[in-house]
């Protein structure tokens, strides 16, 4: 019941925003709808934390600790981005980048995007999960294409085509999984359900299960932005309006990652599957190495952040590949922490591009002085995302590396440390270019506190707080989720 209401809330809000012509009333409806969706999502997360599993609609919906983590990420990131949108979009309209019809469409697609993302972690059937993820691609492609420019058209096109083809391979993986499940157990509607497969993987033919995993990893990996399937990501994430970029990078990547994790957990129920972990680890390391030069040489601020997302997904994949209860828990914590820091970065980068009227970092200087809120917040979040103490990402990356060494993966751990240290240096250098120095004289106008600033403090709070201590309830949730992945709990 609760789950249905949670899904319906953004749909109703989006359709209402799409129909209302009066800009002021539309903003109010959008704001109230966002708050309601946020409260409902947090309610569901709380319920899962209490009962550890929530089911509805004859097991069509199934949510466990793993779902709770991703739901919390989607809830917080999209709430922050929605509120930020109010100020950001007002400015876009004032600057003449968007007209009122486009604005109406923006709010419509934004809420539908939230709805499709919320659908993914709570469905039981892995096929429906595929349907949900494909739906997120389509809906967010509308958001990417919202500016009527050649660049955004190109970004939307690449995004739609590459992700659709990639995800087609994931569907082939599901076909293989489903037919091997039907072959062993006989036909029934629940043969592709997570609740069924998690107990039934053992007798399935091993080579088919592995084939299916590889297809799903490559397919959903395209959507997650793991190298070498990441080519669409910097385009789409840089061309979308900044609040949408924050949701693409902060929420959607993790939603797609969840689909990989579900399949990972199923395969981990078999004997002798070290190959699976190694493959995930390999994709992770490759993403880190591919992202590094692009962050180093980047001039476009949003593209730099997008490549940093490729790097972060690499770190998470590395953690999943390392495995073990602590490794998996650290990777999941990293997922949450990255979502908070990266959405803050994209939103502040949006404020900066509006302030300086450019995305080129060599023409942005002195943000610390000319933007008294966004400048410092950007700097803090940039330090956080590159893994500096005392912020939250340091905690998770430290736990991850420590686990890797304890497990005796000396060589890959050393490689990992080397590359994240290099990326740390590059990220600090790049963000230093933007925030330090003397601002160009025409952009001396001071930034005021408002819709574009206030929402940023919510994710920033988590970036600070989780660096210092992690509440017992959150720890319990993460550990339980890690046990699910390891195949020791359900």
């Amino acid at each position: 019941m609760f789950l249905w209401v949670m899904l319906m809330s953004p749909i109703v809000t989006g359709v209402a925003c799409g129909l209302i012509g009066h800009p002021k009333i539309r903003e109010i409806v959008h704001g109230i709808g966002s708050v309601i969706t946020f409260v409902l999502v947090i309610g569901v997360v709380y319920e899962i934390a209490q009962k550890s599993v929530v089911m509805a609609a004859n097991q069509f919906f199934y949510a466990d600790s793993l779902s709770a983590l991703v739901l919390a990420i989607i809830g917080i990131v999209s709430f922050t981005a929605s509120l930020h949108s109010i100020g950001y979009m007002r400015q876009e309209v004032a600057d003449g980048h968007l007209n009122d019809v486009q604005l109406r469409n923006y709010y419509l697609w934004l809420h539908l995007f939230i709805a499709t993302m919320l659908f993914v972690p709570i469905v039981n059937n892995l096929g429906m999960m595929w349907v949900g993820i494909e739906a997120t691609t389509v809906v967010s492609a509308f958001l990417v294409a919202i500016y009527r420019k050649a660049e955004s058209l190109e970004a939307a096109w690449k995004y739609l085509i590459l992700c659709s083809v990639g995800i087609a391979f994931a569907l082939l993986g599901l076909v293989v999984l489903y037919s091997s499940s039907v072959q062993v157990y006989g036909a029934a509607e629940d043969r592709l359900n997570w609740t069924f497969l998690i107990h039934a993987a053992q007798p399935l033919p091993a080579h088919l299960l592995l084939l299916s995993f590889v297809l799903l990893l490559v397919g959903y990996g395209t959507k997650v932005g793991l190298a070498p399937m990441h080519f669409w990501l910097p385009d789409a994430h840089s061309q979308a309006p900044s609040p949408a970029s924050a949701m693409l990078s902060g929420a959607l990547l993790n939603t797609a990652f969840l689909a990989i994790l579900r399949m990972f957990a199923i395969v981990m129920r078999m004997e002798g599957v070290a190959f699976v972990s190694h493959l995930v680890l390999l994709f992770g390391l490759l993403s880190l190495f591919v992202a590094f030069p692009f962050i180093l040489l980047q001039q476009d601020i949003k593209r730099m952040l997008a490549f940093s997302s490729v790097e972060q997904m690499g770190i998470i994949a590395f953690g999943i590949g390392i495995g073990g209860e602590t490794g998996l828990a650290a990777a999941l914590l990293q997922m949450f922490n990255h979502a908070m820091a990266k959405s803050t970065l994209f939103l502040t980068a949006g404020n900066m591009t509006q302030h300086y009227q450019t995305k080129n970092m060599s023409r942005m200087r002195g943000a610390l002085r000319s933007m008294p809120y966004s400048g410092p917040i950007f700097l803090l979040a940039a330090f956080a995302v590159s893994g500096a103490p005392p912020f939250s990402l340091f905690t998770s990356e430290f736990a991850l590396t420590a686990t890797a060494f304890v497990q005796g993966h000396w060589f890959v751990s050393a490689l990992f440390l080397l590359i994240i240290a290099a990326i740390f240096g590059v990220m600090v250098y790049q963000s230093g270019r933007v925030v330090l120095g003397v601002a160009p004289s025409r952009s001396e106008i001071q930034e005021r506190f408002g819709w574009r600033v206030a929402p940023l403090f919510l994710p920033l709070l988590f970036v600070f707080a989780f660096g210092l201590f992690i509440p017992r309830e959150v720890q319990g949730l993460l550990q339980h989720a890690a046990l699910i992945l390891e195949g020791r709990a359900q």
Partner: protein
Amino acid sequence: MDFWLDVTAMALMVSTSWIIAIRYILSGIKWLSFQSFMLSLLTAVLAIETGRTDLFVIAAITLAVKAIAIPYILYRTLKAVGIDRQAEKSFGRDRLIIAVLAMWAIGYYVTPDLGLGSGHNLYLSISIGMLLSGVLIMITHNKALMQGVGLIVIENSLFLAALSTSFGMPFLVDIGIFLDVLVVVVLIAALSFRMDELLSSMSIEKLRRLKG
């Protein structure tokens, strides 16, 4: 019944091979519609053979969505930008025909080792061949609409794979996939149209602004 199974198998192979080699986008859309129609026919034949009602529903939806609605949307878009557009290919026709033959061969030799599904295993080979050919269409064609056609060929191949190994995916999943595919095609049509408007060409060669 076996006669019809053979006919549809042949028709699927011929239509897929033909789409790769056509000269005009319009004929690509027509052959795509024909291919989807054959897929719907195959589903209906299997529904009669097994007596499963859900397969009849799936056959009807395949006919409505894939054989009629999707080609119609693509046709309307093509009409808006100019009906006589050619499907630009980056390779010559003879090379493409050799390539598509290789795809069928790969499909034929790879699938028996899988040990997947029972009975109509020929269809699994055809579906893998179709999948690879669909990717080939997308790689070798420059026009945005033809990439859409290639994507639908891929979708059709996956539908065939599920049909041949386990009589389709679970019912609700199939419905969801149809919905997704339909919306994807609407978006492809809208983006192609806007591409033609903005860049005065539907060629994806023009999409070269975003780099690094």
